[in-house]
């Protein structure tokens, strides 16, 4: 199956190449999730298979920086949600990546 490279496809691939932390933030952008749900979600929207060590490395860094926080839960699976600072950070990073992707695609079309 072939499909044209869209702006969104390319952007997720750029994110995947840069930092698992951004993938985790993007996964939590609309809803709280626990680790396994994040892995499944990231695999679905970005096509990236994060290992458990990589995922929890990113969760640790993001929590230390106050970009995500644990949600009180009775479940043994600990859910996390994005904080206001995390949303701002994600927005800034995606805007920056978006500019790179748009410029790259435009130049490829012009070439």
């Amino acid at each position, binding site marked *: 199956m072939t499909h044209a490279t869209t702006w969104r496809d390319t952007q997720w691939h750029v994110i995947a190449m840069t930092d698992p932390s951004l993938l985790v933030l993007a996964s939590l952008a609309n809803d709280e999730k626990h680790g396994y749900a994040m892995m499944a979600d990231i695999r679905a929207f970005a096509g990236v298979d994060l290992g458990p060590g990589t995922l929890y490395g990113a969760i640790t860094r993001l929590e230390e920086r106050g970009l995500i926080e644990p949600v009180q839960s009775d479940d043994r699976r*600990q859910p996390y949600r994005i904080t206001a600072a995390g949303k701002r950070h994600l927005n800034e990073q995606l805007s920056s990546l978006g500019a790179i992707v748009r410029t790259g695609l435009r130049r490829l079309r012009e070439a």
Partner: protein
Amino acid sequence: MRTILRAAARLYPRAWRARYGEEFDVLIDHLTPRWRDVLNIILGALIMHISRLAALPVALAIGGVTLGAAVSMLMPPVYTSSARVLVQLTNGPVDESERVLSIRAATDAVLKQSAIDKKVIAATLDQQFKRDGGLGVTLLDVQGSAGSAPTAKQETEKALGAIMRTNLVASNGQAQNAGLRFTLLELPTLPVTSHRDSTRNGAIGGVLGLAVGGVVVLLARRRKAA
């Protein structure tokens, strides 16, 4: 396989396990076990150890390297002049390997006898032995270093003179012991470029930084344990 995954998860730092250990184990229980996950967890644990324990030593080491390199840049430049001498064995053992050992020992003795100041002059034997009509020969690189190009050249000439005088003495009195003939192949050069010991000083700074950081971390851990 799941047991291996759980065992790998035990490799994380204790403090990290206290905070994330239970939920990490739950995640592992939900995974379809794969070997790549074992490697991923081991790598994750290693990175976590480095980031938590070694942050201070690594930061100090980087600071030490930077400081060492910066200090080097502030120090005056060093010029190095060089000359090359062909050293031949005029008599001695017939066997090639014995001749090689003999020429090394004899040349070392001459260098020692010529009392070269090691701080200023570096005279090294070329490791690459060559054959010359069945005689063991070697090349002696003589280097003089100083704060200016002319002085560096003078230092090299002084070192060469010391070696040659030793050879003359050896010819008159101890010739049979030394058994060496020196031929000047390359005259002392007048260096056009200078160098600073940034690499050496940077390395020293890095090692010191790492050591200080390590001691601080150890002391902090002992204090915390007490």
